[in-house]
Each structure stands twice: as structure tokens, then as C-alpha cells.
């Protein structure tokens, strides 16, 4: 058993866990807030763009099999550029982990643990992520592969079971807040696919790097379907006003579920799934943080650093005074960071590295012709 490489399903679930957590952490609500009733059209639109974007990334990675984005940045701009670029990514992932930890812990506190201190709730996640990183990549990937199908099935059950509450008139007006917000300014909703950032780092861990294309496309398609399903269900079940409230929209959906007279409040079961999903997501993110740190510092074994980074994430997550600040950071700063840094700058690095590679190859070919 190779303990450092990921198989096809493990790699797909590695990327998919990002979108499931985004769905759990109120992402569909933000799409609906932006586009109104036409959110589902917007999701289809941005999904197509995300798919094309993924195909572009796959194409750009073709010349760099076995490398992650940091390795490619080293090829492009040398060690100094790589280190600056790595530090930027390190900060992005720390920010992701911090926001997710605080946001989800606040949600749990509001729903069930109103008497418990926030740090106490966060500690459960921190312990889980440290434990996961002690076991290493393969164990994390396998545990994630076990958890993800159950979580995906859970989301599917939530969406399908709320069918009786569907009001199809809520889809009207079809174009929601207008064509402009649906197709033009709504394009910024592509930040939903921040899972693409994980694709940039997954290549060196693949058992078969030729499967990168398959992994990327399958994971983006499944992510799109789930995002569409959740957005559509929320639009059909709740009025625009209800969805735009601060509460967790996916949790609200679970509250509507009833199976006969006996099972009327089964939302806690889904919360258990969400907790495991969040644990898995944070563990993977911490793994990537350690991986980037290892790349920067060239330390032999970065596992021991998991305590430091986990504590750092815990500390940072406790900094914002309330959940509103966290959500502002999430949907304003983080959104732009993903858009400009992951989708913009990283892609630019890939394109430039490809151009450099092509030129080098041309130079090499012409040298051979001269000889």
C-alpha cells in the first residue's frame, strides 16, 4: 500500500469535500442574495465557465506532470518567486481554515451549544485536524473517501425530501435581479469553485498523474450538480427574504424535513454529517498548509508543525468579534482573494510557465537543427 499517493476516487473526494462544505456553510444563500430567483441560472452559467476554466488548467498542467503550482512557480521565477508565491498560498489556506472553523463553530453554538464557550467547540475541530495530520495523507484521504459519500447522500436526501415544500412560483421572475446580475456581475460567483485551488496542489500526490484531467473534470461536474441542486431547493422552498437572513440556509432546509408523526426534527443527524465533513475539510486544508510550509522551508517532516499551525488557526479564528465580521471577510475579502489570486494570478503563472517552456523547447529544437 502506497502511503503517499492518491487513487482516482480519493483524489476526486479530496476536491469534492470543498464544495460540500461550501454548501453547508451558506454558499447557496450568497448566490441567491446576489442573483435573486435567477440564482439557479447563474449557477449553470458559472458552472460552465468553471468547467472551461478547469479544462484550461488541465491543459496548462500537461507540460508539468508531477508538479504542483509551487514547483511551476519555481520554474518560472526561481526560488525567490516561489517562496513569495508559496507564502501567499499559505496565507490563503490559513484564511480558508480560519473562516470555516469560526463560521461552522458559530453555527453550532447558535443551534445546539449555546451554553458552551466558542473555544470549546473549536477545540474539537482542532484536535481532529491535528490527529488527521499525524496519520498522514493516505489516512486523511481514505477517511475523507468514507465520509464524503455519506455527506453527499445526506445533502441529496435533504434536497429531495424537501420536495413537498417546493413552490414553483418562487422561481418567478425567472431572471431574478436582472440579466446583468445573473450573467455579468454574477460571474463573480465563480468563487464558489474555490476547490480549484486544491487542484493546483494535488498533482504530485496522484498515483497516476495522467488521471489529473479525469479527476478535475469529474469533481467540477459533481460540484456543479450539487451546487445547482442546493440552490434550486433553497429557491423553491424559502422566500427570498427568509433565505437572505443570517441563519444557515442548509440547516433551515433540514428543519423542514418530516417523516410521519414520529420523526419531525431529524436535523441533528445531518448536523453530525456536517461536523464530520467539516473535520475532513479542515484536516485536508491543514495538510495543504503543512505541505506548502514544507515547500518553503525544506524541512524533512512537516507533521510536527501541525500543532503550531492548528493553534495559529484557532487563535486567528477567535480574533473576529462576531460572526458578522467573519461573514464579511468571507464574502468580500475572501471572495476577491479567490477571484484575483486563485483564478487570476495563479492561472497567469501557469500560462507564463507554459510560454517559457515552449520557448525553451523551441530553442532546444533550433539548436538541434543547427547541430
Amino acid at each position, binding site marked *: *500500500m502506497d502511503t503517499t499517493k492518491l*487513487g*482516482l476516487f480519493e483524489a476526486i473526494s479530496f476536491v469534492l469535500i470543498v464544495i460540500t462544505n461550501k454548501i453547508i456553510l451558506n454558499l447557496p444563500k450568497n448566490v441567491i442574495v446576489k442573483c435573486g430567483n435567477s440564482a439557479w441560472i447563474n449557477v449553470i452559467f458559472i458552472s460552465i465557465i468553471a468547467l472551461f476554466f478547469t479544462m484550461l488548467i488541465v491543459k496548462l498542467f500537461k507540460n508539468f506532470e508531477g508538479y504542483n503550482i509551487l514547483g511551476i512557480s519555481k520554474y518560472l521565477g526561481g526560488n525567490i518567486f516561489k517562496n513569495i508565491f508559496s507564502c501567499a498560498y499559505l496565507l490563503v489556506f490559513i484564511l480558508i481554515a480560519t473562516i470555516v472553523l469560526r463560521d461552522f463553530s458559530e453555527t453550532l453554538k447558535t443551534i445546539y451549544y449555546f451554553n458552551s464557550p466558542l473555544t470549546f467547540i473549536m477545540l474539537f475541530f482542532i484536535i*481532529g485536524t491535528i490527529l488527521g495530520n499525524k496519520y498522514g495523507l*493516505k*489516512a486523511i484521504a481514505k477517511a475523507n473517501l*468514507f465520509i464524503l459519500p455519506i455527506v453527499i447522500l445526506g445533502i441529496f436526501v435533504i434536497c429531495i425530501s424537501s420536495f413537498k415544500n417546493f413552490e414553483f412560483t418562487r422561481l418567478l421572475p425567472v431572471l431574478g435581479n436582472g440579466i446583468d446580475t445573473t450573467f455579468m456581475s454574477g460571474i463573480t460567483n465563480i468563487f464558489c469553485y474555490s476547490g480549484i485551488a486544491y487542484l493546483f496542489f494535488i498533482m504530485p500526490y496522484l*498515483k497516476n498523474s495522467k488521471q489529473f484531467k479525469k479527476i478535475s473534470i469529474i469533481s467540477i461536474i459533481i460540484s456543479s450538480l450539487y451546487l445547482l441542486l442546493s440552490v434550486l431547493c433553497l429557491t423553491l422552498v424559502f422566500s427570498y427574504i427568509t433565505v437572505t437572513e443570517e441563519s444557515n440556509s442548509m440547516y433551515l432546509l433540514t428543519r423542514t424535513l418530516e417523516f410521519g408523526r414520529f420523526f419531525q426534527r431529524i436535523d441533528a443527524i445531518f448536523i453530525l454529517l456536517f*461536523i464530520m465533513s467539516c473535520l475532513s475539510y479542515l484536516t485536508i486544508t491543514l495538510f495543504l498548509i503543512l505541505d506548502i510550509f514544507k515547500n518553503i522551508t525544506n524541512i524533512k517532516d512537516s507533521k510536527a508543525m501541525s500543532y503550531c499551525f492548528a493553534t495559529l488557526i484557532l487563535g486567528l479564528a477567535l480574533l473576529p468579534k462576531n460572526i458578522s465580521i467573519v461573514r464579511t471577510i468571507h464574502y468580500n475579502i475572501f471572495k476577491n482573494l479567490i477571484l484575483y489570486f486563485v483564478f487570476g494570478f495563479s492561472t497567469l503563472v501557469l500560462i507564463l510557465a507554459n510560454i517559457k517552456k515552449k520557448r525553451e523547447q523551441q530553442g532546444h529544437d533550433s539548436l538541434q537543427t543547427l547541430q
Partner: protein
Amino acid sequence: MNKNFIKGISNFFLYKPSSKYEFTLPDYSSDEDSNNDNPYLEDALDPATKKISSSLDDNLNYIKAKYNSLINSDINIREFYIMAVDKRFKAFLIYIDGMADTDSINHFILKPLMLRNRTNTHKKSNICKIKINNNNEDFNLENHISDCLLPQNRVSIIEDFSKVTSDTNMGNCIVFIDSLPIAYSVDVKGFKQRSISTPQNEIIVRGSQEAFVETLRTNTSILRRLINNEDLIIENSVVGKISKTNVAICYMNSIANADLVAEVQYRINNLDIDALVSSGQLEQLIQDDSSNLFPQIIATERPDKAVYSLLDGRVIVIVNGSPYALIMPGVLNDFLSSPEDINLKYQFSNLAKAIRLLATFFALLLPGFYIAISNYHQELIPTELLFAIAASRESVPFPIIFELLFMEISFELIREAGLRVPSPIGQTIGIVGALILGDAAVKANIVSPILIIIVALTALCSFAIPDLSLNFTFRILRFVYVFLGYFGGFLGIGLGIFALLLSLSNLTSFGAPYIMPFLTNISNGTTTSYFNSPIWLREKRPKFLDTKKIFSQGNISRKWQFYKKQ
């Protein structure tokens, strides 16, 4: 103390390079397509059809190679000279220790052939005269030896090695004589049969009712008798500087992965201990991760289970003096399977397996879930039931955690006490403990009735787990989940499940991923999926064993279905 505390804390955070011993078998993950051509017919374990040579040395070399006599500890080959027609002929005999009666071999094969007597010192011319006078037949040395020199009730002359190996495996003694292109198969079977006791802990309704015993050679002879193929290797090894305990390493030479066999041999041969008395000790000494609660080696008292495992490509280790054979590698699926499963129709066994899976879930998580729900997530309980629970708890002065721990520990006490006393009293203790104590505890308002149901259901479910070691694991983990549920509700339980998944994902048993087939094996047709497919579809051996032979049956195993009636 202060210094020790600081040292302990600093050690916890100090970087320690991973000292994990790593042995891995090739990882056959879901996405790698294996060769699906079924070479079953071409390379099945066909016995050799080679004819016996008239050269004794050729026969001897062939037999030695066929039976791997240098490493097979129970294969006995005895070279000697026989006397016939007043001449000396070179000869050898072969038998399997434990399967043949050595007294019969000594008195009725070796003695008449080796020692000088009236029959073997007759000259050929004299015999010819006798023969001619009686039957008017020519002298024939082959018939002379079987008719006059082997005083046994069943002696047959065989001409090819397929019969040699099959008769040897059945417990016969085979005699080869120089210059004769035949061999004599003498019926001297002497293995232990039904007097062997029935299994005490792995009881099944359908299937074999014999169990291993304490004698090593009897156990190996049981395996030989059930497998009946010379491909079975039984290697001997000695463990313990003082006890010098014999340990037999058994495997199918043409099936088991050579690396796996070598790893088992390596671990057993590198034990520096004074004494080895039981297989339980050996299990702890050679398993991959001794700190992990989950069992990694299967211990069985059933020879049929051991034989299925051998034919799957696993390695069996039998310790002299222990009635349990160790099967390695063992994955989680094996510990949740019963030997009964293979004997039942797949629909029946799958129903049993589904119930067992449910029982596993309850045995591990039910008390933890109860405490989490009643402390943090009460809305999960339907209103009517919630009222009933609240009413039943009204007169109980203790918190739920106390009630639960009190009942769980009481139950563990009953179980432990029931095991340690003679069986008739044990049953009484069970009844007294479970019924009277439970009833009295409810009446005394120490615990609520609902909790009795929870603890009883958990206990019932834990009995449905087929493996004793896994049962112990769940008993310990149950308490962990109770505390996690108490401190964090579903958050604690979620963390517990996540940690358990991580631990299981990280665990290997002799290089095989422990959670096979739950996560890594997606392909069909192997015998590793949790639920059984119909028996004729179980074409492949478990992938994680990386066996030399992938297929265990043909593409169409029920050929009779496709033959037209004549």
C-alpha cells in the same frame, strides 16, 4: 516530579522521526484495472501427469522438488535398501508425518523389506519353480514384492506421479524401488479423525464440527487431509530460547504471495523471547501495530476456516500447544464475518451480515448516541417518547452519565463473573445479574427503565460480533464514545468517528490495508466485498493479498448448466 512533567511536555512536542515499521503489499486500488483474463484452466493446481521413472534418483529428486522436502517439515522421505530374490535394491519411501501410522510402516513395510527373512532370500530360480508349479506363470519382480514382501491388506501398484501425490496426501505410504518404473501405495492411514473435539467458541449450524487440538502434528494433518494437495507447504520454526516451541507456517506455494510468506517467516524467526506457550502470545508479538485496539490477525479454532484462508492465499501459523491457528493478514471484514457465511446461500448470509453490521453500529455507538441525544439534541426524540423518558427519569437523582456508567460497568462485571465460574453457575449469574439487578436498580430509582433497554440492546448487539478480539475493542471504544457524547454531543461523537476512521485507514495487517474492502476495493468478482455475491461469481481471490493465482474458479463454474442432456 516537576522535571519529569516538563520533560514529558517537551517530549510531546519534540520532533521524533517516524519509527513505524513498514511492510507493504502492492496496493490494488479501485482505479487500477487488473488483468481480467481468467487463466484458471491453464494454471489450475493440476497434479503432475509425469510417469514414474525406472531410475530411483530421478524419482527421488522429483518427489523432493514436488513436496519441497527441504522446507516442508512433515514430509518424511526414508532411503534404504531392500532385500528381494536374495539381492539388494536401493529404495525409498515417502509419507506425511501425522497422517500415516508409523508403527504400520515400521512393522509391515520396512521390516519385511529390509530384514533378511525366508521370503526375501529365496533365489529367483526357486521362486520361478514354485510359481511355475502352482500357476504356470513367469516370475515378475513387481508382483513378487507386492504379493510376497508387503504384508499389508491394501497395496496398489501405481505408474504416474499424480497418483503418488494424491495417495501421499491421503495418508498412504509410497514405496519406490530402483529399476522399477512403478511405485507401491500402501494403505497405512493413521491420522486423527472425529475424536477431535468440536469448536467451543466458533459454533455454527452448518459446516464442519471439528476443531484444532493442542498437538501441532494433528493440526497439520487436519489441514493436509482437507486440502489434499502437495502444494500445501508446512514449514517448521522454533520460537523461545527456553520453551523451544514448534511453530508451523502453512501456505499454498502456488497461491500465496511470496513476500507475504517471507514477511511472516521473518517476523517469527526474529523473536527474542524465552518462551512461547500460546498463539495469543505470538499474535501480539508479530502483529503490525500492537498499540492499536483493533485485532490484525485472525485466531480460529476451526480447520475449515483455516483452509478457506489458505486457499485464498493467506498464511496460517499453528503453535504447538495451542488449539488456535493464526491467519494473516486479517482485515476488518474478516472479523465481521462468520464461518457460517460461506455455507449459506448468499441471500441468507447477506441478511445475517446486514444484521451484524447493524449490531456493530449499535454495539459501538448506541450508549454514546443516547447520552449525546439526551444531553444536547433532545429534539431528535419524538415528543411522546420524550415525555415518557422524562417521566421515567423523574425519580432518578443521578445524571445520565452516572446511570449509564453504572449499568455498563455492572454488565461488564456480570459478563466477567459469568466467564470465570463453572458453566452451570455462569448461566445462573447471568440471569441473577441481568434480571434481578436490572429490575432492582430500576425499582430503587438508581437507573431509568429506558437505560436498561439501551444497555441490554448494546450487550445483545455486542454478542452478535463474531470475533472475540473485536468485541473487546468495541467494549473499550464504547466507553470512549460515552465520554465524547457526554462532553460534546454529536460534535464529540463526530470527532470520535473521524478519529476511528483515520485510525482504521492508517492500519495495515501484514501489508494489507485494514479497511478492505470498505474503501479501497470497488471492483467486483473478488471474495473481499462485505456482502457475498453468489458462490459461482466469486471468481477472484482477494486483491489485497496479491496472490500468484488471481482466479479461484473458471469463468463458468457451473458448466453443467450449459451441457445439453444427451
